[in-house]
């Protein structure tokens, strides 16, 4: 029964790809039912009614045994619930959002493929199985980002996303191989990892595996693809680049935590990467004008929080924040999506304004989401961010203060876009006759808004489900610091953008995204293009021309010379004949 989790979306994807692409209505139906089936199965598993099935031997050779099976522990069950739930809501939402797009049949097929691979990562029982679905998630994100492949920018963004993921996977695979070489197995057996304890390889394995997370969860330095991934349709951004795929990296870290905890150095590196990413992303988000890009950087920043939490060995805090973040970030993206849908894909917040009056439902739900994200007490974000700050305070004080400052920044940029986009006067006429999105898009917003409010409280039981909080007492300093940060952020936001009609402060460093793109273009791409051109020149001229055809030329030259010996003059022939005879005699008698 549990196999349904994988089989349903996979078969739906295959069916759509092979047969139903031309019939959007049928492919939508198939895809949504598949998503519903996965949600119900996940529910069944969560309620303990369905056990993990026996595993199949995918590769069984002397020296390597790779199995396809399912681990359904608390971590996996929670993640399954969150992913399948959000996915189902986004499927419903996409019905409305993609209503008039001719290629939507293909869209739903690719959504099912993504869902299957995401579930694959969650239930993976060994590194190779995780790597398999890890790459499949990369492929489906490539397909979904590049859905509107006519747009050059979308096609380039898709390629950039896949390549960044691929670099991360490269490190991930090396990590797996080193783990397998030292511990002899690829399965997630904590006792097998004993071989790594105290071994100088432990930090290397930890960091290599972390590379996979850096690639997938868009941590610095492999984060450049996430903002461009906004080229994809908004449901894609909501599902993949907010709730599930980017979270896979964090989930992976929690899943293989038994390896990371063997090397404190690796953990501190992870923590610092998380902290820096959170800070940098928040800073960039403050200066972005495109609503989806702001949300993208905000996702990057929140992921930095989760990675920070894992770095400070607060896996429960990380998972708690991951779940709550999944709810309200998906809500924010879908809210933004419904605004874009109404404003015919106008994404610049400075050309919006006063949308709240025209689209009340979207405004309210978006507001709840923004509040939850900024960490306003009483909502989900506050509780989960609190946990992370507690964990950070305990082990990395410097990072704690950075995180607190980032919390302020988060509140600041969320108020900024809410005020600029939803309140104030409509700045362009397209806003004037915008009207509320259809109910099929509104419903998921309402459900998620509810979750955003409720999810944080203990009675909802996420933390209890994960097996209780980490040990260690909570210092009072943390709630105080986080509250002040939030208030400061809100106030600064309100002052700055209460009645602003255009961007008051312009900080080019943040606007240009710390010039990461330029740096990459200049170093990685240029280096690669130049070396490729040089090597191809060498291959064409040195190996191809000088060596190969040179050799041929020498041979033909030899032929030419020998040909000229035959000068046609009889006397010369006689001479050569005599010379030959003489040579013969000399050889016979010379020795």
């Amino acid at each position, binding site marked *: 029964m549990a196999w349904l989790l994988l089989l349903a979306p996979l078969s739906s994807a295959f069916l759509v790809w092979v047969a139903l692409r031309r019939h959007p209505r049928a492919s939508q139906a198939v895809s949504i039912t598949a998503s519903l089936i996965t949600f119900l199965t996940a529910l069944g598993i969560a309620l303990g009614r369905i056990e993990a099935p026996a595993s199949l031997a995918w*590769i069984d050779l002397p020296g390597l045994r790779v199995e396809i099976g399912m681990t359904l522990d608390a971590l996996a069950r929670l993640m399954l619930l969150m992913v399948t739930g959000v996915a189902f809501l986004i499927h419903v939402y996409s019905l409305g959002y993609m209503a008039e797009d001719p290629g939507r049949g293909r869209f739903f097929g690719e959504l099912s493929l993504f869902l299957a691979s995401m579930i694959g990562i969650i239930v993976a029982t060994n590194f190779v199985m995780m790597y398999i679905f890890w790459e499949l998630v990369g492929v489906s994100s490539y397909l979904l980002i590049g859905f509107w492949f006519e747009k050059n920018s979308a096609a380039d963004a898709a390629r950039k996303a896949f390549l960044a993921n691929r670099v991360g996977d490269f490190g991930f*695979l090396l990590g797996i191989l080193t783990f397998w070489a030292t511990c002899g197995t690829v399965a997630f057996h904590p006792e097998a990892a004993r071989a790594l304890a105290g071994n100088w390889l432990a930090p290397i394995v930890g960091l290599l595996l972390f590379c996979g997370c850096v690639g997938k969860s868009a941590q610095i330095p492999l984060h450049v693809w996430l903002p461009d991934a906004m080229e994809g349709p908004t449901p894609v951004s909501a599902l993949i680049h907010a709730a599930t795929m980017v979270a896979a990296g964090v989930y992976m870290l929690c899943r293989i935590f038994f390896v990371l905890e063997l090397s404190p150095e690796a953990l501190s590196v992870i923590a610092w990467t998380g902290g820096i990413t959170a800070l940098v992303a928040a800073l960039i988000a403050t200066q972005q004008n495109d609503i989806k890009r702001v949300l993208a950087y905000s996702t990057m920043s929140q992921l930095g929080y989760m990675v920070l939490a894992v770095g400070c060995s607060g896996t429960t805090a990380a998972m708690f924040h991951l779940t709550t973040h999944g709810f309200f970030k998906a809500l924010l993206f879908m809210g933004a999506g419904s605004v874009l849908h109404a404003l015919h894909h106008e994404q610049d917040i400075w050309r919006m304004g006063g949308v709240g009056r025209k689209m009340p439902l979207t405004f309210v739900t978006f507001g709840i989401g923004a509040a939850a994200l900024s960490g306003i007490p009483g909502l989900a974000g506050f509780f989960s961010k609190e946990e992370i700050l507690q964990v950070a305070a305990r082990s990395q004080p410097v990072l704690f203060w950075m995180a607190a400052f980032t919390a302020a920044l988060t509140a600041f940029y969320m108020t900024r876009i809410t005020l600029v986009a939803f309140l104030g006067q409509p700045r362009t006429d397209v806003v004037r006759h915008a009207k509320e999105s259809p109910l099929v898009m509104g419903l998921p917003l309402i459900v998620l808004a509810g979750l955003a409010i409720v999810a944080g409280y203990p009675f909802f039981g996420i933390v209890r489900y994960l097996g209780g909080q980490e040990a260690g007492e909570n210092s009072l300093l943390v709630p105080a610091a986080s509250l002040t940060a939030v208030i400061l952020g809100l106030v600064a936001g309100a002052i700055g953008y209460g009645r602003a009609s255009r961007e008051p402060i312009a900080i080019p460093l943040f606007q240009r995204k710390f010039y990461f793109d330029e740096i990459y273009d200049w170093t990685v791409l240029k280096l690669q293009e130049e070396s490729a051109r040089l090597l191809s020149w060498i291959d064409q001229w040195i190996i*191809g021309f000088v060596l190969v055809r040179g050799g041929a030329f020498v041979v033909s030259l030899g032929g030419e010379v020998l040909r000229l010996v035959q000068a046609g003059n009889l006397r010369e022939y006689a001479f050569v004949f005599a010379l030959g005879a003489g040579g013969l005699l000399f050889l016979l008698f010379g020795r």
Partner: protein
Amino acid sequence: MSPLTILLVVEASAIGLILLGAPARRVSLVAAGVNFLLSLWIYAQFPSGIGGWHFVENHSWIALGALPEIRYHVGVDGISLPLVLLTTLVTLAAIWVSPTQIKRAGEFYSYLLLLSLGALGAFVSLDLFFFYAFHEFALIPTFLLIGIWGTENRQFVSLQLTLYLGLGSLVLLAGIIALLGVLPAEARTFDIPRLTEYLRDNPISPRQQLVPFALLAAGFGTLVSLFPFHSWAPFGYASAPAPAAMLHAGVLKKFGLYGLLRIAIPLLPGGAEAWKPWILALLLGNVLFVGLTTIAQKELPAMLGFSSVMHMGYLFLGLMCWNALGVSGVVLLMVAHGLSAALLFAVAGEVRERAGEISFAELGGLARRMPFVAVAFLVGSFASVGVPGLANFPGELLIFFGAWKSQPLITAVVIWGIVISAVYQLRAVRSVFYGDLPQHLAETVDVEGSKRIPYALLMAALLILGIWPGTLLGVVGPGVKEFLSLY
């Protein structure tokens, strides 16, 4: 009459019929279809779980005092069966994909069948003479196929290819003779199993193995486009007509690897060990040097040519780490690369024919006009980049695992190849099929009707092997285990 001989007879008689004037395309399609079904039947009948040779047919061919005995010895084991399947499938696809109206069709199809007959013969024969002779069947037909039906500067390219491969096969001939020469007089035989047994019981001193192995490695290396000897391959495949490129890059290139796997390394382990550092260095050339050169390519067919040379690096790595994982990985990847290369070259042929363009600059947005071809190219690209769920991934994975313990650093560099291949492959997808559609390509027409079946076949094979490698591993695993137990 072992079914393997029937395979050869079917193709030979098809050529005969064509020469007698039968409608070339229909006859060769039927023959290829029959052969494919027959090879599936052989696969089904293949006793899994136990290694060793099956469907064996063995009679004396030439037995004269001084000359080592030549036997018509045909058989298939866990390692050569997948290659036979690959050959019959790619032949069927190649013939089906070739354009219906083509000048001098009779000659065209008979040369294609000769190519496939050569490969089939080489993979089933267990006698060094037949093994070598069958492969050489393909040399002149390739020359004629590229020369007459090729494109761009086909004249020079096909001449260079034929001379280069001619040199390679003659060096190989010298290697085979050197191998036989090293043995004492009474042990000299062309029969591979008997050679293997003999050399297992009384191995020859490593110093004596140096020269024969060097010759064999150079010969097979040239046929497989190992790094410095690769200049013939990329532009040869680029200018060849699609079916010829499919058969040559997809199937015939595997002859060299199969030769190393079956003859060079097992019979001369000392030589292999001695030359190992050299080959490891050269295969890095394949992955990095040729990999980066592929990125700089400006035309689709040339890029595919370079990419198929680059992938040989993985296979050589698998060969060099002589363990169960590596060798099974090599067999799997040989089949997978054959399928993906065939698919990609078929698509390149379609793009050249229907869009009339091959350089990235002029192409773009074809996915809108040719959705089916775009999907085929996407599947082929993802396969060749090693995405899980398609056949190349399990092969590459096994090779990486096999090679990691003995050569971690070199394997790490080779693994970087998966990023390089992603770069150039996706750039091809981006600039040919995505982005905006240039004006002059507005009316390109997609592949329709029965012409889609070969693509579907190749894609299905890639998917099946990718999702469940057990289909082949069930046969390859025991075969390799038993094969390695011999040394």
